[in-house]
């Protein structure tokens, strides 16, 4: 447990330092000192707020997310095409529906990843999450059967939790 917290702390530290270096662009000693001070203040505040945990600093899982993201981009591109066509059609032919989707994700991080992936894909929006059921509003009823989300569910679970967890 202690080791995990150190890992989250280091992940947050690396992320903040990287963010500062990427935003600043001026690397004189004075400004670097100021940047170090601001990073330290952020870390102290995060420690005091007690948010240095799995959800506050999910940088340990960054490889999983990096592998998941290209697949998500592909899905987003496909869904975008559908919605763009729906927007531009002279005769509107949408058939919105509310669908209940059951997810196999256990941890909150995996659930959030799955729900956000659904929302990011145009044409589907997560309306409500309760336990392992999600209420999804979809633009096309026929394309939003609960089975359509199975692959996304599996992949987001793997991205957030890794493959070793069975359920």
């Amino acid at each position, binding site marked *: 447990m202690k080791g995990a917290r150190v890992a989250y702390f280091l992940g947050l530290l690396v992320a903040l330092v990287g963010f500062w270096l990427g935003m600043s662009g*001026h690397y*004189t000693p*004075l*400004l670097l000192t100021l940047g170090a001070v601001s990073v330290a203040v952020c870390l102290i505040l995060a420690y005091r707020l007690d948010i240095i945990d799995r959800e506050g600093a999910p940088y340990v899982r960054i490889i999983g997310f990096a592998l998941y993201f290209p697949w998500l981009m592909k899905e987003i591109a496909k869904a975008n095409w559908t919605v763009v066509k729906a927007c531009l059609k002279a005769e509107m032919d949408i058939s919105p529906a509310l669908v209940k989707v059951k997810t196999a994700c256990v941890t909150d991080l995996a659930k959030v990843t799955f729900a956000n992936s659904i929302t990011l894909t145009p044409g589907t929006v997560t309306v409500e999450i309760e336990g392992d059921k999600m209420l999804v509003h979809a633009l096309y009823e026929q394309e939003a059967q609960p089975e359509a989300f199975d692959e996304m569910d599996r992949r987001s679970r793997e991205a957030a939790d890794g493959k070793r967890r069975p359920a």
Partner: protein
Amino acid sequence: MAMSEPDIGMALVNIVLLGLLFVVGIAIARLRSLFAIVMLSGIYSLVSAVWYVAVDAVDVGFTEAAVGAGMSTAVLLGAMLLTSRTAKPEKSLRQLGPLLVCIATGIMLIYATVDLPAVGDPNSPANTGVGLTYLRVAWFDTGIENVVTPVLGSYRGFDTLGETTVVFVAGIAVALLLGFGERSLAETIRNEDKSLPKATTKPDPENEETDA
């Protein structure tokens, strides 16, 4: 200066932005639903901040973004909580006075722009007085690249301290008035509403808005 060279793209951008501001202003004046007005004032801040950036006033754009779009929307919503949801229509005769004030102010502002120096004029007060000195010495004095920062933080440090204090006090005062805390005024009023049946029944925003 991007505006000094005749650039048709930037001119179009300026026209569209000012047109947007105009439409939002008219809509704010005409609408009755206070929630819509709060939302539109947020949009007004967003557009005007883009326009500030387009006319090279990036620091003003920053302030407008933080205060106008972020903070004032929240404060206005908190203020809306304490009053009703729709504005009463004003008698047209009583609208005459504010209209005259607006027109007079506009005329005075336009009259004042005649005296303004051209953009990038080397003989303008901004480019001949203390500003030029700041531009020369700021880097050697402080080592900060953005000139605005040492001017505000170092050369006019006490001035900025005073301003910050005023803004802080104003923020605290607003928070006390609107009640973001535990014993919020809004909560007190709501409890009073519940204990006094039919005292002031606020119209429900959802139903009211959906019917419209």
